[in-house]
């Protein structure tokens, strides 16, 4: 492993997302390379910052606020349902008319 590969995988390594073989390669490289060890420390510090963020929880059920906004929904059918809901003869008759209109 070289420094470039190490840099590419460092976040996954610190996050524990690498498989054991790749993780051991990262470990071996960090043992031998001071600048990559520094990079590893920086990534751990960054991860620590994210981990220190407060829990975010929604304190209320949004349905009560949302329900009134859903009243004005236009009636719309699924596109495929709309497309195939006309009888085939009607579609055959109306298709040329529609193309003329364009």
């Amino acid at each position, binding site marked *: 492993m070289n420094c470039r590969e190490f840099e590419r995988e460092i976040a996954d390594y610190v*996050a524990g997302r690498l498989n054991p073989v790749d993780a051991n390669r990262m470990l071996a490289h960090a043992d031998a390379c001071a600048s990559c060890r520094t990079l590893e420390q920086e990534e751990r510090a960054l991860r620590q910052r994210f981990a220190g*963020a*407060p829990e975010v929880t*929604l304190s209320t059920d949004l349905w009560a606020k949302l329900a009134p906004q*859903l009243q004005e929904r236009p009636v719309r*059918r699924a596109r495929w*349902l709309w497309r195939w809901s006309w009888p085939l003869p009607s579609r055959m008759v109306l298709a040329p008319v529609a193309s003329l209109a364009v």
Partner: protein
Amino acid sequence: MTAIDLPETTRDSRREVTDEALLRQIAAGNDVAMQELVRRYQGPLYRFLTRFLGSSDDAEQAVLNVFVRVWQNAGRFEFRSQVSTWLYRIAFNIARDMHAARKARPQQESLPEEYALCDPLVGNAEDEAMRRIERAEQYRQLQEALGQLNEMDRLLLVLYYFEDSSYEEMQNISGLSYKVLKTRLSRARQRLRALLGQES
């Protein structure tokens, strides 16, 4: 609004209905199905949007906007991706618009409740208060730095570090290929580190 009962509407059985089945019902105007989808996703979307926008007040409004858009467009969903991915993509689009609008009106960031300093303090109250202030400051710096990045960089970092999303999920939400995603994430990380280095 048409209210059509789901096939099974007891509390437990409703949870067994897949997201896809719910969406088909929503497309047909079933508000019971809509309510169930809201119950499933309001928490995760609120968390994601709070992290992305850096404001819990804006996040709540954004979640409401997401669900309104789902209600209006459920019939257009083509079931090529997971419903959850679609929801996060809508959330990202809405958050991006809100963030752009917010740039025009600087505002006080609202901290999540856990950092509120008015809670009764037990034990060594002074130390605890100092720790809270320190953590709140670190979080403020992080949110400020995230806010200076472009939307795609911020999205990737929020998904990776806060949501612990897989690369597959991140690809589906961002629309980036695996290779591009890895490169952009790496660069976003470097930019974030540089910004945090300037602040601290």
